């Protein structure tokens, strides 16, 4: 028994000290999945010799953690998959101002923070996916119309706890105000085919099977399924079609994945280096293509499925508004009964 | 048939080891029997066969005239209507005393159950204990509860496995008497197992002496003591020594302490060498006697001394003498042989 305890001690000490950070590196808290960012970081390390350390997780968790860690945080960069969280991080004073010509030149103004606290890296849209067998494309117009009673029991969408839905509702608050959006949300909920469950891919599958006729999803999920090479996924995806909502109005709702440098970063210079690398053409091409997103750099062309889908009118509100109205959106969704 | 228990040629082997060998006896209703023997003689196994926990390889067990065990037929334990008290009582810890006692009374009306409970509580003097739990009781109280529980359903036979083993020594004999009168009062046939003779003598109407899986003798205590049938019964029951002797005729045997008159079994011929049992009460202290023996050791027993004496020819005998005759060691005392029952075995 003693021997076991002794060996355990050795291991625990070994593991603890294995974790001590070393020099010449950059540390990232990433809400974006590892596979969608790590290879790029590896390339960066190869090029510059700077080690990049990555933890993945939920943005909310990281924001909490950054708050608590305060000035002792080891993180240099926070990478999120939506704008509202970037805004929240900024509001909590977790970012710092970055003055980089490269970043400012490459990224359009509405896709970065006005005070240069955060920067978008890729674009995605929340679209309507429908079953061509049961829905005529002519019946679809925009998000507002989804509250119409003709859609009763025919809509699938994921839970209100998901940030993509929260940002969509936030954007509607910006365009229509709280009261109207709440009325819309209440009727929308009545149109649900089932209680929200699963992720966006589940909603697509639900449409394919016939559980519902339309769904609200991020477009890259559909693209991913079509391209997956897996029989089931492809066949499900093929039973649906994409519709760009609101093309006659203010356009389809868009969101970004983005980054900011933490206020107490110990490796600010290297962090900026990494950020600037991430907006190079080579990086942007990989970063957006790997997840079927659009590059923030309008000059970068789309390939594959995205190319086939073509251009679309996108909502051009300033994305910081998504953050500003996030808590309104959450409370509203609660009141509407959107689970 | 008024036999409560009949055992016929019962044999039991476990994994090629013989535990019980051709055992037969009968026990009448309301009688108390005791299986007596040293550890490992098979008495507990016999008890368990009667209970039904073991199945015999040969022979039969009959309870109240019904065959409960034989190689072809077996009635499960729970249908035999037996009562059993285990050596460590094994009361149900999660029930209080009264619940323990009435556990086996299932198919009776409430009134009857209460009646029987009251009877037993009075019989076994458990009035103050009714609502206590087993861990709150003393050893003796636990024993009485275990008894009451076993007796409550009026079983055809009550089986007791070393009931006094967990109790204080001084109490045992007295408790044995009390137990006997309780059992007689309730009118219940009982078989008890013990290795302690005094308990057996106090409790039983009939005792079965067992050794190595065989039943040596099934008889009253008095007969076992005075008319043991085999050498090992004689050796086991009571105290005494064997001295060598020679048959003179069918009424007399010659020994080193004198000639003894008594019944000589027919199968012993003149001149045959025999072993004669001399019990401590066969040797009396007689100051007037010509025969003397030297006191080698003595054991004080309160009312008596048990003297171990050495005769002139080196023979050792024992004598039970009233204790006011306090003779020191190495002192010679006069002794007289007075044997009422001659107990002899072929050598």
């Amino acid at each position, binding site marked *: 028994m003693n021997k076991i305890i002794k060996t355990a001690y050795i291991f625990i000490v070994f593991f603890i000290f294995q974790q001590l950070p070393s020099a010449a590196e950059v540390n990232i808290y990433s809400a974006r999945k590892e596979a969608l960012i790590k290879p790029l970081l590896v390339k960066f390390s190869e090029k510059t010799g700077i080690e990049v350390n990555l933890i993945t997780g939920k943005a909310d*968790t990281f924001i909490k953690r950054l708050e608590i860690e305060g000035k002792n945080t080891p993180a240099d960069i926070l990478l999120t998959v939506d704008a509202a969280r970037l805004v929240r991080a900024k509001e909590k004073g977790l970012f710092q101002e970055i003055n980089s010509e490269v970043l400012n030149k490459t990224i359009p103004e509405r896709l970065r923070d006005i005070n240069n606290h955060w920067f978008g890296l890729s674009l995605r849209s929340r679209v309507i996916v429908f079953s061509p067998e049961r829905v005529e494309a002519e019946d679809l117009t925009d998000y507002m119309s989804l509250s119409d009673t003709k859609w009763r029991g025919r809509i699938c969408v994921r839970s209100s706890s998901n940030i993509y839905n929260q940002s969509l509702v936030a954007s509607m608050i910006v365009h229509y105000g709280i009261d109207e959006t709440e009325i819309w949300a209440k009727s929308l909920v009545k149109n649900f085919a089932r209680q929200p469950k699963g*992720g966006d891919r589940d909603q697509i599958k639900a449409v394919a099977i016939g559980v519902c006729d339309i769904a609200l999803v991020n477009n890259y999920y559909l693209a991913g399924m079509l391209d997956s090479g897996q029989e089931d996924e492809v066949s499900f995806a093929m039973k649906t079609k994409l519709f760009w909502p609101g093309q006659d109005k203010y356009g389809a709702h868009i969101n970004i994945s983005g980054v900011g440098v933490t206020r107490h970063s110990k490796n600010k210079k290297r962090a900026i280096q990494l950020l600037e690398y991430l907006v190079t053409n080579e990086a942007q091409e990989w970063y957006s293509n790997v997840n079927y997103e659009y590059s923030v750099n309008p000059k970068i062309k789309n390939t594959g499925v995205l190319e086939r889908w073509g251009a679309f009118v996108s909502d051009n509100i300033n994305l910081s508004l998504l953050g500003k109205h996030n808590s309104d959106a959450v409370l509203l969704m609660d009141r509407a009964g959107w689970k | 048939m008024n036999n409560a228990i009949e055992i016929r040629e019962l044999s039991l082997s476990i994994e090629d080891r013989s535990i019980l060998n051709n055992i037969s006896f009968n026990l009448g209703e309301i009688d108390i029997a005791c299986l007596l023997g040293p550890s490992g003689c098979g008495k507990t196994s016999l008890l368990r066969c009667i209970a039904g926990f073991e199945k015999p390889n040969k022979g039969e067990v009959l309870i109240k005239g019904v065959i409960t065990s034989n190689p072809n037929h077996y009635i499960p334990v729970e249908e035999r209507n037996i009562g059993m008290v285990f050596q460590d009582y*094994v009361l149900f810890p999660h029930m209080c005393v009264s619940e323990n006692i009435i556990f086996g009374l299932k198919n009776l009306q409430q009134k009857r159950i209460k009646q029987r409970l009251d009877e037993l509580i009075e019989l076994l003097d458990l009035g103050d204990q009714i609502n206590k739990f087993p*861990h709150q009781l003393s050893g003796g109280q636990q024993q009485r509860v275990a008894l009451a529980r076993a007796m409550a359903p009026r079983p055809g036979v009550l089986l007791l496995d070393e009931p006094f083993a967990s109790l204080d020594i001084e109490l045992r004999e007295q408790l044995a008497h009390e137990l006997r009168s309780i059992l007689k009062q309730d009118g219940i046939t009982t078989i008890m197992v013990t290795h302690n003779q005094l308990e057996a003598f106090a409790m039983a109407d009939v005792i079965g002496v067992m050794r190595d899986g065989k039943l040596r003798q099934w008889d009253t205590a008095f007969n076992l003591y005075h008319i043991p049938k085999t050498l090992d019964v004689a050796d086991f029951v009571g105290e005494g020594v064997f001295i060598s002797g020679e048959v003179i005729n069918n009424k007399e045997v010659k020994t080193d302490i004198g000639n003894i008159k008594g019944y000589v079994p027919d199968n012993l011929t003149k001149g045959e060498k025999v072993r004669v049992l001399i019990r401590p009460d066969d040797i009396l202290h007689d100051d007037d006697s010509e025969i003397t023996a030297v006191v080698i050791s003595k054991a004080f027993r309160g009312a008596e001394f048990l003297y171990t004496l050495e005769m002139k020819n080196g023979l050792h005998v024992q004598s039970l003498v009233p204790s006011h005759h306090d003779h020191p060691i190495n002192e010679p005392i006069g002794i007289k042989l007075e044997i009422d029952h001659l107990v002899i075995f072929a050598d």
Partner: protein
Amino acid sequence: MTFKKFSESFYSKLNFKLSNFNLALVLLSLFFCIPLIIICGSLFFPAKDVWTHLFDTVLVDYIFNSFALLIGVGFFSLILGVIPAWLISMYKFPMSRYLEWAILLPMSMPAYIIAYSYTGAFDAAGPVQETIRELTGWGYHDYWFPEVRSLGGAMAMLSFVLYPYIYLLTRASFTEQSVCVLEVSRTLGCNSVDAFRRVALPLARPAIIVGLSLVLMETLADYGTVQYFGVSAFTTGIFRTWFGMDNSLVAAQLSAVLLLFVAVFLYLERRSRTQLAFHHTSSRYSPLLKQKLIGTHAFFAFVVCFIPLLLGFIIPASFLFDWAISAYSGVFNKDFYILLLNTLMLAFVTALLALVVALFLGYTNRNSYSFINKFLVRFVSMGYAIPGTVIAVGVLIPFAWFDSRLDDFLKLHFNISSGLLISGTLFILVFAYLVRFLTIPINIVEAALGKIKPEMDEIAKTNGLSHINIVKRIHMPIMRGSLLTALLLVFVDVLKELPATLILRPFNFNTLAVRTFELANEERLADAAIPALAIVLAGIIPVIMISNSISRSRPGYE
């Protein structure tokens, strides 16, 4: 002079001897109570607006769903756990020797994995319903099929995975009951069913209640399953309030409410245990001769014991296996092995530490009559029901505070920066695990110690044995079965733990659980299958060990 007298009388009233042991116990317990204290402390800060909003909208759901889960999971896991425990303890029937340990297999499956698995298999888009539609030509709305992702589904998933706790403890209790009790009941006219109902079951009740309270506390703490199924329960609510609404105060208060439920269970459990303060029913043991079943009885017994195994392990594992094979290539590389090693070492070290702490607390408590000691240990063992997320932050706050104070101090006086000495390392993760998982070893050690009569300690002391030696040479060998059980349960739990690991893990440190969760939530179930299976496999061997150690530690066996 007067203060001394006062403190002496104070201590004597509390029966608290200021010995080294007692002091160490107090300090250690308080240390582990830190997260709990922080959470309970949150109740002192009012937050009316948020609570009004919660009350108007989701609070009722949280309460209702949590209650429903408790009742459903409690009921099903009792059935799945107790009946097979009895059958296997008492009877021999086809395959009973294998079922004995096989029935524990679901314990190696985290609840969320079995949730993903059943969803992937039985959901509208899954192979089972696909096949039904293909074979019959029906559309989705033409037939009824139970919805996996629902409250009922969550009940089922949790029951399938949690019943082994009840089975384990109940079986240990049945096996440890003196066979004499059952023989006695037979002499009093009980057949097997009666004996089970009137004697064996009541005697096993403390064990069953302990198992049940563990199950219910696990249920309250589950996050992965209810989140995936869209059931709004307290845990999802806490998560949402904490992160989504960014209100840590209210989230901590919600956690405190959750703890109220836990306290109720704990109280019930303790009360029933003291009411039935058992020592063994008899210190004589005879080997338990299992009755052999034949015919329909045997078949029935086999089926009853096989079903839990089927539902909790065979079905989900087969699907996982199937998916794993399709995603096989490209998984087994260096990263995967590092992942595996990390996970195993972390689990092992934590389990060992937990056992040591539990032994210390149990032993010290045993010898003291102090109300303080008992209360503190009780408090420590409540960590189990707190959701991992909640503990993680309850742990992060104080340690980050400590780290930055230390850093300031060192900078000021020695001009060196310590950075995040503790909060960035594995230490904080292990600590969080200990806070959460100490309940099991504490309960088990306490139950096992309760069976050793205090007289044994006294005999040992008169023979001059020191405290450590009493534990090492007397208690531990007797409790070996229970100790191994405790070690194993903690090991498997750490393997499966998710939310705290997600939050607290240091840089570049991943576990299999984290990997599986990420992949599943990305709806890449096929890829998730392999790390999931790795967790399950790692968790299987301990399961087998546990079963063997139970049968061997029963006195009288062999």
